């Protein structure tokens, strides 16, 4: 029986952050996009920066991210989010501009924008969702697709001779002097969510202190694109994606902690 009397502020254990809108998310059940949205929104709320936060959404499954964040937002052309964020943050140095991008967006069509924004040390936060595939367009090969992995455009598996190797863009960006924080996280377990949230919090704190670019990769699943049930996708991710994209900090406070 539900007892109305217990609905009191002091009994409240969980509340959806007001930095998320009421819109129903369009993501597939079990997809990491939704979880990552929630923790970004929670960090914005906890830091009290909703009025200063400006979201730059990508083209990819998260193209409609701006419908879910209750912050002023812009939708960029495919891959161009770091260019938008560069200008927005330079024109408003006290704001909190962040981009939210998939692997195709950030590491294929937008590679130049990504590398140069990081190299200039733009004071922005980049959240990078690496699911090793183009989710939005129906599961084609991404630059991060694993060798041997089957996708709509690598129906016999990614073949190195034909397609080259998976691009470890995060390790590459860590080499640039402009990046201050480079870390790789995931959101498939409660513990992982807590760690990712901490990393995102650190990224926004760095921005507040004008430290340069903070880059948080979230290795994520794409159960639809990978053609697996959500739980199976997470297992597959831990076994295969984490092997190529190991979880952990790569650069902290401007210093490489991993080679």
């Amino acid at each position, binding site marked *: 029986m539900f007892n109305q009397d217990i609905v009191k502020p002091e009994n409240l254990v969980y509340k959806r952050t007001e930095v998320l*809108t009421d819109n129903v998310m369009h993501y597939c059940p079990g997809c990491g996009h939704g979880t990552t949205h929630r923790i970004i929104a929670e960090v914005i709320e906890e830091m009290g920066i*909703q*009025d*200063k*936060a*400006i979201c*730059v*959404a990508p083209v990819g499954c998260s*193209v*409609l991210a*701006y*419908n879910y*964040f*209750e*912050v*002023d*937002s*812009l*939708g*960029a*052309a495919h891959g*161009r989010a770091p*260019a*938008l*964020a*560069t*200008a*927005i943050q*330079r*024109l*408003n140095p006290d*704001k909190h501009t962040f981009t939210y991008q998939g692997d195709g967006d950030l590491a294929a069509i937008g590679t*130049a*924008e990504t590398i*140069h924004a990081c190299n200039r040390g733009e004071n922005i936060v980049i959240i990078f969702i690496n699911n090793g595939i183009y989710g939005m367009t129906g599961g084609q090969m991404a630059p991060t697709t694993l060798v041997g992995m089957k996708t709509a455009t690598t129906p016999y598996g990614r073949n190195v001779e034909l397609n080259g190797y998976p691009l470890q863009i995060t390790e590459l960006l860590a080499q640039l002097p402009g990046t201050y924080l480079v870390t790789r996280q995931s959101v498939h377990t409660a513990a992982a969510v807590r760690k990712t949230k901490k990393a995102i919090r650190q990224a926004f704190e760095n921005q507040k202190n004008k430290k340069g670019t903070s880059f948080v990769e979230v290795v994520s699943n794409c159960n639809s694109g990978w053609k697996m049930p959500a739980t199976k996708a997470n297992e597959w991710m831990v076994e295969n994606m984490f092997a190529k994209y190991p979880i952990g900090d790569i650069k902290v406070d401007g210093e490489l902690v991993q080679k």
Partner: protein
Amino acid sequence: MAKELKLMKGNEAIAEAAIRSGCDGYFGYPITPQSEVMEHLMAEKPWEKTGMVVLQAESETSSINMVYGGAGVGKKVMTSSSSPGISLMQEGLTYLAGAELPAIVVNVVRGGPGLGTIQPSQADYFQATKGGGHGDYQLFVLAPATVQEMYDFVFLGWEIAFKYRNPVMILSDGAIGQVMEKLYVGDYVPRWTDEELRKNAPWASFGKPTDRKHHIITSLELDSAKQELHNHKLQAKYREMEEKEVRFEAINCDDADYIFVAYGSSARIAEKAMQLGKEKGYKIGILRLITLFPFPKKKIAELSTKVKGMLAVEMSAGQMVEDVRLAAEFRCPIEHYGRYGGIIHTPQEVLEALEEKIIKRK
């Protein structure tokens, strides 16, 4: 407003106008014949004077997207380039138009196609006035003919861009960009304060205050019924521009037998050709186009009923001439003349073309 006389290149005038018109940010990438725009800005260090941001981007793709970002948060932002760079910007331009963002983009045109040449040209008319990027959209296109207009049109550009929430292109060419002329510059217009920005660009994504819902700047609308409505709104805006914002200069058109229709550098060459023609007894007028979109359709239709013929003079294989013909609906002979690929026609050549193609026409 206090006026100060200066001697400057057209490209420098663009930069000077940016600083003095309260521009918040310039984002560019070097390319001949317009590199002086960013060079002048970097030398002037406007960030120390007005707080204006100047940044050299990694490509024109990036600079136009920086402009998109800045415009989306309500700032007065601009870029400049020349033909190959403007081709790279087409993606950004259609997104700006779709999201209805104000911005100024300067094209100091050089000869093409491809890498072409670094010499002046007017062969980007189609690209500027007919879209260039995908979808049904229009840039507002201003065509300066002097260094003074390079300067003045930046001020006018902000007015139009914010009034209509539409990107404005200043379509110049290598000759006007490089030539040095005297010009008058005015006092510094201060950059907008945060309060002014909120008033002048209330739609922008400048950070959500507690008393309203979030703003979203985007060109995406997946519901086709809504996307069609959005397109209707854009078209209504373009029709309003055609109604209210057409600008041209009609020189000696009232009793002319023949008309040169031209813009930018070609209008100045046509002016000399008109004088040469007068010495031979021809009554020639010039319709100098200032807005290429909106195009002065009504004026051309009116003139087409009064004159014996028109010569569209442009440094291209014949682009603007198509719009002249459409507006005149073939009520009089309309021909094209122009050198291209980086060659500038002489006044003599223009006059000879008028004689051959129109006056002595059988």
